[in-house]
């Protein structure tokens, strides 16, 4: 393992952990980019599906956008605090990020419940299939990020060494910001178009 680390460090000048997370995000970009590309083209070819998209709760989604943007802010603050070796500030910002992520999922669940009650299921038409598929996959990524953040928060609270905390906060933060960026495009493409 040390040999692999040395190779990645020597050949690229970038720590292997950071290189690894960027490669992972590149593969995630292909996943979401491919799906969004097909969604945009199919929607354009079908004339826009404006009748279906008018049933979405734009204000709930706008609130969720605000929440995710703010969670990126607290995540960036957690990283800055970790670099300064301020354990309390790191932990508080990680917990704030977790709280905001949970709030995002709670609002998303309310949104789904409201749409399902109104009779809009994934089988209600191509728009709804894309809507549940895209936002569901994104929500699963938020959940994955929350689990990683919870593990990180526990490790930070238990006094893990700063060397490890710094790197783990950076890697988890890169993933969390990526999930935010995906939503930044999902919101206008699904709700506002």
């Amino acid at each position, binding site marked *: 393992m040390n040999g692999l680390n040395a190779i990645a460090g020597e050949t690229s000048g*970038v720590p292997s952990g950071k290189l690894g997370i960027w490669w992972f995000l590149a593969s995630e970009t292909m996943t979401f980019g491919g799906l969004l*590309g097909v969604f945009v083209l199919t929607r354009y*070819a079908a004339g826009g599906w404006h009748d279906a998209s008018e049933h979405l709760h734009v204000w709930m989604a706008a609130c969720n*956008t605000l929440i995710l*943007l703010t969670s990126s*802010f607290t995540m960036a603050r957690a990283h800055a605090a970790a670099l300064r070796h301020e354990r309390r500030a790191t932990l508080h910002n990680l917990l704030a990020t977790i709280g905001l992520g949970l709030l995002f999922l709670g609002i998303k669940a309310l949104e789904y419940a409201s749409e399902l009650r109104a009779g809009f299921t994934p089988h209600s038409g191509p728009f709804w299939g894309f809507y549940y598929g895209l936002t569901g996959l994104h929500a699963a990524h938020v959940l994955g990020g929350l689990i990683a953040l919870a593990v990180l928060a526990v490790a930070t609270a238990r006094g893990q060494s700063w060397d490890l905390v710094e790197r783990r906060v950076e890697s988890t933060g890169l993933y969390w910001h990526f999930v*935010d960026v995906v939503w*930044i495009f999902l919101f206008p493409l699904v709700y506002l*178009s």
Partner: protein
Amino acid sequence: MAAPSHTTIWTWLLALLAAGVAAAAAPFGRALAIGLVLVIALIKAVLVVRHYMHLKREPLIIYAIAAAPLLLVLVLAMALVPDLVWRR
């Protein structure tokens, strides 16, 4: 020039969110509104990637890793246009 603080970037992100929602509701033509909303989304994404993901401080290899899938997605989308858009 000093880098903008996390709070400054966050303020810009919230302002751009408000601008995007307002643009979508504005009495423009639909095409113009959608174009405006997507440009605003792109600016938000660039702010997050450059400042919160620190891309502006990263070496060229990280830029390459980040850009490669975007090019591939573009190629994929272009390859799908005949099947999904022109086949009407």
